[in-house]
């Protein structure tokens, strides 16, 4: 047992929450694939408590208070019980007998470990940094909950209600364990946020953002994203948190990403842009998936706020972004409605999955603006009057509606577009452009003309 705990002693002595979390890892490291099994074999269900207690007491009595020893004994014993279930689940899996039960057992045992941790952190038996170790434990709990729910869903595809409900189909959650885990995370969050320790250095408030991130991930999975807003709100309402920039970058970037996505989904694109940009700027250079994720929201966002598209350079750097957005951006730039509609339809499943479809759809306006802008440019210039020079040339600003109609029909003639155009519709779309400020001018219905402003007919596009 002492040998098995050697790693714990080293980790503890280093005062590193991550190192201790590493000791409590439910997965064997690649360089030592037998680690969990070896640890498991050092004791058994009956002896584990006594064994760990004896080992810790004989080793740490002079370095640790009895309270703390007691706390670690419980934590490590609970960890062993978790490992016990994991090893058994692995054995079942190897025999092809992995079932619902095992996944739930692992989850339950890991939940016990998490609860034990919470108990000793809240009563002060464990050092303040243990809250970070708890974060890692809780993150594993989240993953075990996902697995357990997955197994349960396989076992029972649909629950029909029984008992006293009025309606036939039960509202029993499909994500029972993850919902339960969410409540555990809530407790941890409250534990961190509400820490009254005036000494900031040893405050649990340092755990606020990483636990919030855990909650975000959980709520997104549960499709109860609105609950994330409560987390953001309660953090905003807490005035005595350490300054944001002092938190570890991983906490900050993840937090800003989720705040950005939440704002994005609420259609607060200004806020979304600010948060996502901040996340982008601080993102770890070697985490390209996370960079792509940030961009997958930031790109649609910028289209709405600034009408800007990602540079070729950016798309080339991230091939996944290129395949996701490339065609759509090209079509927008060219004012090619057919191409746009085709790209949007083809990408729809992927866009919908990423919750960006409805936002991207709105950028058809930009494609349309670019198309109408071309009509405007093709109209050329008014003839020079006497005494005027080339510099005084002004563009023709009265353009027949029929010209816009012709352009629309040409642009939507391709196979990809499902939009057919009739004359009223052209007027409607023109009206829309003016209403939304993409074009400056008015429609003269009597004359069948669009009368555009002499200056800035298409704002912010140089004409």
């Amino acid at each position, binding site marked *: 047992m002492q040998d098995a705990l050697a790693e714990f002693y080293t980790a503890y002595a280093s005062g590193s929450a991550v190192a201790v979390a590493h000791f409590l890892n439910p997965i064997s490291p690649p360089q030592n694939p037998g680690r969990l099994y070896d640890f498991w074999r050092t004791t058994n269900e009956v002896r584990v408590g006594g064994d760990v207690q004896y080992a810790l007491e004989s080793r740490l009595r002079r370095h640790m208070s009895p309270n703390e020893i007691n706390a670690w004994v419980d934590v490590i014993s609970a960890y062993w019980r978790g490992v016990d279930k994991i090893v058994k689940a692995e054995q079942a899996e190897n025999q092809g007998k992995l079932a619902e039960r095992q996944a739930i057992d692992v989850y339950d045992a890991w939940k016990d470990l998490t609860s034990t941790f919470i108990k000793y952190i809240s009563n002060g038996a464990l050092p303040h940094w243990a809250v970070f170790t708890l974060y890692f434990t809780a993150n594993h709990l989240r993953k075990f909950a996902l697995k357990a729910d997955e197994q349960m869903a396989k076992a029972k595809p649909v629950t029909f*209600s029984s008992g006293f409900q009025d309606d036939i189909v039960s509202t029993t959650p499909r994500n029972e364990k993850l919902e339960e885990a969410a409540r555990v995370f809530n407790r941890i969050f409250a534990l961190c946020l509400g820490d009254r320790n005036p000494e900031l250095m040893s405050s649990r408030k340092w755990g606020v953002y990483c636990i919030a991130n855990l909650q975000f991930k959980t709520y997104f999975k549960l499709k109860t994203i609105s609950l994330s807003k409560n987390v953001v709100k309660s953090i905003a309402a807490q005035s005595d948190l350490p300054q944001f920039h002092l938190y570890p970058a991983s906490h900050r970037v993840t937090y800003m990403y989720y705040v950005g996505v939440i704002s994005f989904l609420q259609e607060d694109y200004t806020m979304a842009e600010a948060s996502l940009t901040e996340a982008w700027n601080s993102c770890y250079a070697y985490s390209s998936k996370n960079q792509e994720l940030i961009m997958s929201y930031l790109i649609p966002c910028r289209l709405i706020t600034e009408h800007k598209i990602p540079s070729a350079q950016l798309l080339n750097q991230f091939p996944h972004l290129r395949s996701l957005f490339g065609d759509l951006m090209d079509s927008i730039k060219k004012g090619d409605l057919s191409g746009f509609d085709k790209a949007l339809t083809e990408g729809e499943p992927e866009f919908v999955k990423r919750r960006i479809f409805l936002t991207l759809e709105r950028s058809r306006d930009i494609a349309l603006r670019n198309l109408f802008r071309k009509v405007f440019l093709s109209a050329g210039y008014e003839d020079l009057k006497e005494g005027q020079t080339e510099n005084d040339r002004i563009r023709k600003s009265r353009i027949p509606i029929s010209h816009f109609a012709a352009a629309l029909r040409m642009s939507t003639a391709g196979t990809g577009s499902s939009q057919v155009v009739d004359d009223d519709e052209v007027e409607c779309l023109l009206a829309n452009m003016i209403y939304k400020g993409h074009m400056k001018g008015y429609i003269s219905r009597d004359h069948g003309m669009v009368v555009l402003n002499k200056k800035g007919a298409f704002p912010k596009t140089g004409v």
Partner: protein
Amino acid sequence: MPQPRNARVQVSCFTAHKQTDFFRTTHHHHPFSLLLLLLSNPLPFTCRNSPAAACSVYFDRASRRWVPRHVLPCFRSHRGVDTELQRSTCPHKPHQAVTSACSQSTSPVKPAKVDWPPAVREYVGRAFEGQNTIKGISREDVTKKLKEVIGFFAERSQLDSVTWSTYPLPQELLRDERLSKMDAAGVKPTLSGTTNTTHDNTPSKKRKSQDRDELQPQPTPGRKTNNLEDRITFAGGNEKRHKKNGLPRDTQSKFDQNDLEKRKQRFNLGTATANRPMPPWVATRNDSDSDMNTAPVVGTNQRLEKQYLRLTAPPKAETVRPQHVLEKTLQMLTRKWKEEKNYGYICNQFKSLRQDLTVQHIKNAFTVKVYELHARIALEKGDLGEYNQCQTQLKALYSQRLGGNPAEFTAYRILYFVYTCNKTDMNDLLAELTPADKTHPWIKHALDVRSSLALGNYHKFFQLYLDAPNMGSYLMDMFIERERLHALANISKAYVPTLEHVR
């Protein structure tokens, strides 16, 4: 001057999927031009009066009739009691009939007015004989139980039909109950009917909780009952409900054979007793909790109508109608709806119909039909609460491929999210659609409505409004005015210099 469609042929929801002749303008204007005309000629475009949420009614016990909810200012006050009931081990209401039958007389051992049969007297005597005392069961408890046992049969004038010489003594009944209670302990039954873990706050959920407030049977004020009494009299709650429903109290129940065997074993009852109504305490706790939640009831009630009441206990077979009766009920309701259009009544009947289906675990094409019909009626009357409840159920039923019209209701869901402008829900719904779904004409119509608004193509939107299949226009009515205003704002800005009088 063609009016925007403010007069509509009321489409019966029973014929909804056969496209009936919707309102159509005879001389067909393009809708966008129509708006333009409206704008230049400031004719007030009338809003079709949307039907108010009509079914917010409450059954007033005092006056024994349905009253609109706003008439009853204190309908929320039951909440506290409700919660308390849910928390206690047994949520069931004391049975007034039983308790009042004997609780007034101080002791049944000395009957003052009633002439008890000798067998009963003997039974009472045996109950208090020292040799029959069971450790841990007090004399008081025995007395109380005795009152209830005798009261139960006395009330039914069945004192003579019981073989008192073999009937279990009160203390034996109590022991049995306690033992089975211990068995069941640890499994806390979820009696609330709904889990409180869902974070959902859709209108349907809210609606549901309102219903609970409104329709929860009220405990008699000022009457405090202990747990034991609750436990033994819980089925009496049903009995009372039963009476309220106007059903014969002693409807014979055909017990499940298994159930019967269990009971026989437990009480050493002879077969002769099988056809007698079972006293409430016979439905012991240990085949409740776990079993109660899974075993379907097999209904025996033959009445077509039944007033809806929220269940707080497992229903008795004699209060539940089997499917073949429910099918007739549905026919009757269909006819009544067409003839009378009394939504309050229809909604209540549909709810009890749904409840009977649920407790019997009937989930088949008929179930789908019931929910579809209720959803259509609710939609026609603008009762979004019920409509959404039905939609939720239908969604799950369709996933079981039980038939019905999934395309029709998918289209409604899309239109509903257009109405609520809920982008997240809309996105989730889009994520569920298969390519085949998207090409279905009804669903495609709804999707086109969505995209036309997203792209500001009001011209197309108003055309789609005129062409809405099934009951789509009832849903579109909910946002047509909003979008018409958007379109007008849009037009006013774009045409402003040519439309002087608008300024």
